[in-house]
Protein backbone atom coordinates (compact mmCIF):
# COMPACT_ATOMS: atom_id res chain seq x y z
CA UNK A 1 0.00 0.00 0.00
CA UNK A 2 2.93 2.31 0.67
CA UNK A 3 4.09 1.73 -2.92
CA UNK A 4 0.63 2.50 -4.27
CA UNK A 5 0.59 5.66 -2.16
CA UNK A 6 3.93 6.72 -3.71
CA UNK A 7 2.57 6.25 -7.24
CA UNK A 8 -0.95 7.50 -6.61
CA UNK A 9 -0.49 10.62 -8.74
CA UNK A 10 0.37 8.38 -11.72
CA UNK A 11 -2.68 6.24 -11.04
CA UNK A 12 -4.94 9.33 -10.99
CA UNK A 13 -3.25 10.60 -14.16
CA UNK A 14 -4.45 7.49 -15.99
CA UNK A 15 -8.09 8.15 -14.95
CA UNK A 16 -8.15 5.49 -12.26
CA UNK A 17 -9.30 5.61 -8.66
CA UNK A 18 -7.81 3.16 -6.18
CA UNK A 19 -9.64 1.53 -3.29
CA UNK A 20 -8.07 -0.96 -0.89
CA UNK A 21 -10.37 -3.56 0.61
CA UNK A 22 -9.98 -5.91 3.58
CA UNK A 23 -12.15 -7.57 6.22
CA UNK A 24 -11.11 -4.96 8.79
CA UNK A 25 -13.68 -2.88 10.64
CA UNK A 26 -14.01 0.84 9.79
CA UNK A 27 -12.19 1.65 13.07
CA UNK A 28 -9.20 -0.57 12.20
CA UNK A 29 -9.14 0.75 8.62
CA UNK A 30 -9.30 4.33 9.81
CA UNK A 31 -6.29 3.68 12.05
CA UNK A 32 -4.33 2.25 9.09
CA UNK A 33 -5.37 5.13 6.81
CA UNK A 34 -4.31 7.74 9.38
CA UNK A 35 -1.06 6.01 10.27
CA UNK A 36 -0.02 5.61 6.63
CA UNK A 37 -1.64 8.88 5.49
CA UNK A 38 -3.22 7.09 2.54
CA UNK A 39 -4.64 9.30 -0.23
CA UNK A 40 -7.25 6.71 -1.22
CA UNK A 41 -10.24 5.13 0.55
CA UNK A 42 -10.12 1.89 2.48
CA UNK A 43 -13.20 -0.32 2.14
CA UNK A 44 -14.39 -2.55 4.95
CA UNK A 45 -15.74 -5.96 3.99
CA UNK A 46 -16.57 -6.92 7.56
CA UNK A 47 -19.11 -9.60 6.51
CA UNK A 48 -16.58 -11.07 4.03
CA UNK A 49 -19.21 -10.92 1.26
CA UNK A 50 -16.93 -9.18 -1.24
CA UNK A 51 -13.95 -11.49 -0.78
CA UNK A 52 -16.34 -14.42 -1.26
CA UNK A 53 -17.83 -12.79 -4.36
CA UNK A 54 -14.33 -12.36 -5.81
CA UNK A 55 -13.20 -15.85 -4.70
CA UNK A 56 -10.39 -14.45 -2.58
CA UNK A 57 -11.11 -15.93 0.84
CA UNK A 58 -8.11 -17.36 2.63
CA UNK A 59 -9.88 -19.47 5.27
CA UNK A 60 -6.68 -20.71 6.87
CA UNK A 61 -5.54 -17.47 8.49
CA UNK A 62 -6.98 -15.28 11.20
CA UNK A 63 -10.50 -16.67 10.79
CA UNK A 64 -10.70 -15.84 7.07
CA UNK A 65 -9.00 -12.91 5.40
CA UNK A 66 -8.50 -11.69 1.82
CA UNK A 67 -5.84 -13.13 -0.45
CA UNK A 68 -3.81 -10.22 -1.86
CA UNK A 69 -4.93 -9.30 -5.37
CA UNK A 70 -5.40 -6.35 -7.70
CA UNK A 71 -8.32 -5.90 -10.10
CA UNK A 72 -8.72 -2.99 -12.49
CA UNK A 73 -12.27 -2.48 -13.66
CA UNK A 74 -13.09 -0.25 -16.64
CA UNK A 75 -16.02 2.22 -16.61
CA UNK A 76 -18.22 -0.42 -18.32
CA UNK A 77 -17.78 -2.64 -15.27
CA UNK A 78 -15.52 -5.18 -17.00
CA UNK A 79 -12.30 -6.49 -15.49
CA UNK A 80 -9.39 -5.42 -17.69
CA UNK A 81 -6.50 -6.33 -15.37
CA UNK A 82 -6.12 -8.99 -12.72
CA UNK A 83 -3.20 -10.01 -10.56
CA UNK A 84 -3.58 -12.76 -7.97
CA UNK A 85 -0.74 -12.34 -5.54
CA UNK A 86 0.63 -13.87 -2.37
CA UNK A 87 1.48 -12.33 0.96
CA UNK A 88 5.19 -12.35 0.26
CA UNK A 89 5.17 -12.19 -3.52
CA UNK A 90 3.25 -9.44 -5.26
CA UNK A 91 3.03 -8.11 -8.77
CA UNK A 92 5.56 -5.40 -9.53
CA UNK A 93 3.67 -2.10 -9.47
CA UNK A 94 5.54 -1.03 -12.61
CA UNK A 95 3.59 -3.71 -14.48
CA UNK A 96 0.31 -2.25 -13.19
CA UNK A 97 1.34 1.31 -14.08
CA UNK A 98 2.51 0.26 -17.55
CA UNK A 99 -0.84 -1.40 -18.12
CA UNK A 100 -2.72 1.71 -16.91
CA UNK A 101 -0.71 3.88 -19.29
CA UNK A 102 -1.41 1.56 -22.23
CA UNK A 103 -5.07 1.30 -21.24
CA UNK A 104 -5.33 5.09 -21.05
CA UNK A 105 -4.11 5.27 -24.65
CA UNK A 106 -6.28 2.35 -25.76
CA UNK A 107 -9.35 1.89 -23.50
CA UNK A 108 -10.28 -1.41 -25.19
CA UNK A 109 -7.04 -3.01 -23.96
CA UNK A 110 -7.08 -5.91 -21.52
CA UNK A 111 -4.07 -7.46 -19.86
CA UNK A 112 -3.52 -11.07 -20.90
CA UNK A 113 0.02 -11.56 -19.62
CA UNK A 114 0.45 -11.87 -15.84
CA UNK A 115 3.06 -9.57 -14.39
CA UNK A 116 6.24 -10.82 -12.74
CA UNK A 117 5.98 -11.15 -9.00
CA UNK A 118 8.53 -9.72 -6.69
CA UNK A 119 9.46 -10.98 -3.28
CA UNK A 120 8.49 -8.68 -0.42
CA UNK A 121 11.08 -8.40 2.34
CA UNK A 122 9.12 -8.08 5.60
CA UNK A 123 9.55 -4.81 7.45
CA UNK A 124 10.59 -4.71 11.10
CA UNK A 125 6.93 -4.05 12.00
CA UNK A 126 5.75 -7.10 10.02
CA UNK A 127 8.45 -9.29 11.56
CA UNK A 128 7.40 -8.17 15.05
CA UNK A 129 3.74 -8.96 14.25
CA UNK A 130 4.69 -12.39 12.89
CA UNK A 131 6.58 -13.14 16.11
CA UNK A 132 3.65 -11.92 18.22
CA UNK A 133 1.21 -14.11 16.27
CA UNK A 134 3.46 -17.13 16.76
CA UNK A 135 3.96 -16.59 20.49
CA UNK A 136 0.55 -15.31 21.59
CA UNK A 137 -1.82 -16.81 19.03
CA UNK A 138 0.09 -19.98 18.18
CA UNK A 139 -0.24 -19.13 14.48
CA UNK A 140 2.67 -20.10 12.28
CA UNK A 141 0.87 -19.27 9.04
CA UNK A 142 2.38 -15.79 8.59
CA UNK A 143 6.08 -16.64 8.67
CA UNK A 144 5.60 -19.43 6.13
CA UNK A 145 4.71 -16.87 3.44
CA UNK A 146 8.00 -15.08 3.86
CA UNK A 147 10.37 -17.93 4.73
CA UNK A 148 9.10 -20.51 2.25
CA UNK A 149 8.77 -18.21 -0.76
CA UNK A 150 12.42 -18.69 -1.85
CA UNK A 151 11.64 -22.42 -2.04
CA UNK A 152 8.62 -21.88 -4.30
CA UNK A 153 10.42 -23.06 -7.50
CA UNK A 154 10.62 -26.46 -5.78
CA UNK A 155 7.33 -26.41 -3.83
CA UNK A 156 5.00 -25.28 -6.66
CA UNK A 157 5.93 -28.11 -9.13
CA UNK A 158 5.54 -30.67 -6.30
CA UNK A 159 2.09 -29.26 -5.45
CA UNK A 160 1.09 -29.29 -9.14
CA UNK A 161 2.28 -32.90 -9.50
CA UNK A 162 0.31 -33.96 -6.41
CA UNK A 163 -2.78 -32.13 -7.69
CA UNK A 164 -2.54 -33.82 -11.11
CA UNK A 165 -2.05 -37.22 -9.45
CA UNK A 166 -5.11 -36.64 -7.29
CA UNK A 167 -7.20 -35.81 -10.40
Amino acid at each position, binding site marked *: *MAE*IKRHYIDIIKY*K*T*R*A*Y*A*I*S*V*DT*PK*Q*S*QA*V*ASEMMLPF*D*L*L*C*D*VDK*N*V*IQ*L*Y*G*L*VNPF*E*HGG*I*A*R*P*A*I*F*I*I*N*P*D*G*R*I*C*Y*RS*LDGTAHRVDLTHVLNFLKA*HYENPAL*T*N*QKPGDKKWIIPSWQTTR*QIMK*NMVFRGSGA*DWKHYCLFPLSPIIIPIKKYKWKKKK
Partner: protein
Amino acid sequence: MNRNIPDIDDMAPDFKVLTASEEQFQLKSALKNTHNVMLIFYRGHW
Protein backbone atom coordinates in the same frame (compact mmCIF):
# COMPACT_ATOMS: atom_id res chain seq x y z
CA MET B 1 -7.09 -21.44 -4.93
CA ASN B 2 -10.79 -20.79 -5.30
CA ARG B 3 -11.95 -21.19 -8.90
CA ASN B 4 -14.73 -18.60 -8.72
CA ILE B 5 -12.35 -15.71 -9.18
CA PRO B 6 -13.67 -13.40 -11.90
CA ASP B 7 -11.39 -13.37 -14.93
CA ILE B 8 -10.31 -10.69 -17.38
CA ASP B 9 -13.25 -9.54 -19.58
CA ASP B 10 -15.79 -10.74 -16.98
CA MET B 11 -18.20 -8.24 -15.47
CA ALA B 12 -16.94 -7.26 -12.03
CA PRO B 13 -19.41 -8.35 -9.33
CA ASP B 14 -21.09 -5.28 -7.85
CA PHE B 15 -21.05 -4.77 -4.08
CA LYS B 16 -21.82 -2.28 -1.34
CA VAL B 17 -19.59 -1.79 1.71
CA LEU B 18 -18.68 0.88 4.22
CA THR B 19 -15.54 2.95 3.87
CA ALA B 20 -13.15 3.59 6.77
CA SER B 21 -15.00 6.86 7.38
CA GLU B 22 -18.25 4.85 7.54
CA GLU B 23 -19.69 6.14 4.27
CA GLN B 24 -21.48 3.88 1.80
CA PHE B 25 -19.47 2.72 -1.20
CA GLN B 26 -20.94 0.96 -4.20
CA LEU B 27 -18.78 -0.26 -7.05
CA LYS B 28 -21.40 0.59 -9.66
CA SER B 29 -21.59 4.21 -8.45
CA ALA B 30 -17.81 4.54 -8.36
CA LEU B 31 -17.65 3.49 -12.01
CA LYS B 32 -20.26 6.04 -13.10
CA ASN B 33 -17.79 8.91 -13.23
CA THR B 34 -15.98 7.38 -16.26
CA HIS B 35 -12.93 6.40 -14.25
CA ASN B 36 -11.40 2.96 -13.93
CA VAL B 37 -11.52 1.48 -10.47
CA MET B 38 -8.50 -0.30 -9.05
CA LEU B 39 -9.48 -2.70 -6.27
CA ILE B 40 -6.60 -3.71 -4.05
CA PHE B 41 -7.41 -6.68 -1.85
CA TYR B 42 -5.13 -6.81 1.18
CA ARG B 43 -4.83 -8.96 4.27
CA GLY B 44 -5.76 -6.19 6.67
CA HIS B 45 -4.86 -5.64 10.28
CA TRP B 46 -3.32 -8.75 11.81
